[in-house]
């Protein structure tokens, strides 16, 4: 291959062309106006594979501007490979400032977690969604599930949850736990652990959900009622952990289990890496915290 790149292929600012952005922007506005309803949109191929955040990336690319500060997390962490890759993509195509600090970000793109630090008004949380249809595994046909949403016919999902209780004594859904939005649409919160469900309820931030492969966008405006489905005798409850974070001693946060050796040794640490670092900077120490102080670059301005 010659060393000189040719102009055989060139790309637009923020990757998407303006017409595509307009189409996605229109879908976002409809999503906000009909909370929890999945708006079909003509999802584009993106330069990362379907299933790797193309929906979230399209939403972020359509809303982002030069003054935004972007944070990208996967599994709650800023340093997981796919989060690094998506962050690098936006640095490259939109030249925006990026950060790992939840409080400093104006747009947070996430896969599988909601940050522990409470979100504030003016922030936008963009979720990457693999399967947006909460009824999909009960009814594979789009033609059928669309009818169910239209008629507000959600018996099926209650039956499924109830069967869980009959069989296992509890609701055996631990992530992607369905919610009801403003008493109308049943919505899939994306595969976040149900631990995060209460954070969606009346959040001051705008929450946008993008499913690229399935071509759906949906939204939760700020201060929107989001209620996890349950039964009177089996109320919704979140996971609890028996021990605090081994690094920062945080309690009531979601923890990752890290395997330390092959003799059953393990430790539990914060899944939200920013939250954990912040606490350690403030002097909180878990029983396995390393001695070395943290010195991490957290925000990089636009070039």
């Amino acid at each position, binding site marked *: *291959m010659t060393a000189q790149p040719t102009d*055989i*292929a060139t790309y637009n600012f923020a*990757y*998407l*062309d303006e*017409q*595509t952005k307009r*189409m996605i922007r229109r879908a976002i506005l409809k999503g906000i106006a009909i909370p929890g309803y999945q708006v*079909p*949109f*003509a999802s*584009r*191929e*993106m*330069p990362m*594979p*379907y*299933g790797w955040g*193309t929906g979230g990336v399209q939403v972020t690319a359509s809303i982002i501007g030069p003054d935004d500060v972007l944070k990208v997390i*996967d*599994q709650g962490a800023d*340093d*997981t*490979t*796919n989060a*690094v*890759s998506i962050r*690098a993509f936006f640095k490259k195509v939109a030249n925006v400032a990026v950060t790992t600090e939840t409080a400093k970000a104006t747009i947070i793109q996430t*896969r*599988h*977690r909601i940050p522990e630090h409470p979100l504030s008004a003016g922030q936008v949380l963009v979720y990457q969604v*693999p399967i947006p249809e909460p009824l999909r595994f009960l009814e*594979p*046909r*789009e*033609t059928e599930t669309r009818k169910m949403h239209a008629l507000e016919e959600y018996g099926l999902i209650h039956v499924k949850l109830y069967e869980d209780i009959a069989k*296992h004594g*509890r609701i055996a859904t*631990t*992530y*992607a736990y369905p919610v009801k939005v403003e008493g109308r649409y049943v919505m899939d919160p994306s595969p976040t*652990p149900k631990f995060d469900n209460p954070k969606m309820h009346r959040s001051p931030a705008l929450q946008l959900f993008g499913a690229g*492969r399935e*071509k759906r966008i949906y939204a939760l405006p700020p201060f929107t009622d989001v209620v996890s489905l349950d039964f009177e005798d089996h109320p919704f409850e979140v*996971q609890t952990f028996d021990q605090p974070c*081994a*690094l920062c001693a945080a309690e009531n946060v979601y*923890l*990752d*289990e*890290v395997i*330390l050796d092959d003799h059953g040794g393990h*430790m539990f*640490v914060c*899944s939200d890496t920013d939250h*954990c*670092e912040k606490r350690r900077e403030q002097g909180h120490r878990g029983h*396995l915290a*390393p001695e070395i102080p943290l010195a991490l670059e957290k925000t990089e301005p636009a070039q």
Partner: protein
Amino acid sequence: MYVAVKGGEAAIRNAHKLLADRRRGDRSVPTLRLDQIVEQLALGADRVMSEGSLYDRELAALAIVQARGDMIEAIFLVRAYRTTLPRFGYTRAIDTGTMLVERRVSATYKDLPGGQLLGPTFDYTHRLLDPELAAGGEVAEPEQRAGEAEAMPRVSAILAREGLIESDGDMPEDHVPGDITREPLAFPMARDIRLQALSRGDEGFLLALGYSTQRGYARNHPFVGEVRIGEVELALDVPELPFAVPLGSIRVTECQMVNQFKGSAKAPPQFTRGYGLVFGQSERKAMAMALCDRALRASELGEDVVAAAQDEEFVISHSDNVQATGFVEHLKLPHYVDFQAELDLVRRMRAEHDARENAGKAEEKREAAE
């Protein structure tokens, strides 16, 4: 000791450097040029153009090299580029009846106007590996056709004259064809939309589904009315001009499948059509597409939907290999947050289960002792 590392960025950079190294391979071997791929791996480039939905041989060749010959990866590269291109307009529908035909075969007639034309086909080659090719031997010039080619009416038109085949679609006059790259798919879909999805669908997936119809999973009694390959002209209507502007020509493969049909409450006994059209030269894909198209018309023709190939949502939702590969391969991304949630649940349920078992055993023991 666990220490949170910020190594992701460096790891990715290094992985991609290694990829570039492996792609180049042994530096003493000359680099592949795009024109070599365009000329000598032309059918590979055709598949990339067809499933990438972008007619550009050079970009297809670039994608093939960049993907190290991984066809789905190459198709993905082309799609991700195509999607950023602004839309200037829509050409007039191509007329395959006026095609400059290089190959045309019909299985339904021994001879017909325009004749059978074998063209550059693998058919009837003996599949013996050819050491001469490896040696890079000279290739003789092909024979040229003497004189002007005869007009080549489509077989479907011949059947239509007798009224024995259904008319060519029932779209209203003013129907504006949809565009699956611009509008979200909705089910059920009109046939124009379905055909677009099939045309960019994965060759292997459509081949397997087409094959399944032949083996009795929604058999549709197909005959290859005609397969034709060649160049067709493209023309664009420009509002300011009184005539359509010619843009050049593209090479396509078209398959008209003729299917026996006994008739239904809605339609008289007649032949029905299954249609396949793809960029470049790919009979396998065009024929598989035509089989699937016919199978997917089951509801329209009042047939029972009994097999996978007839199920529109199933076929169209799973035919796109860029979508399929992304979602299958995304399983290798970290899922440890969700796994942790499941782990916790299974541990708790297991503990309850063990407690019940032990309580039961203790009870048995006590009863035995009494």
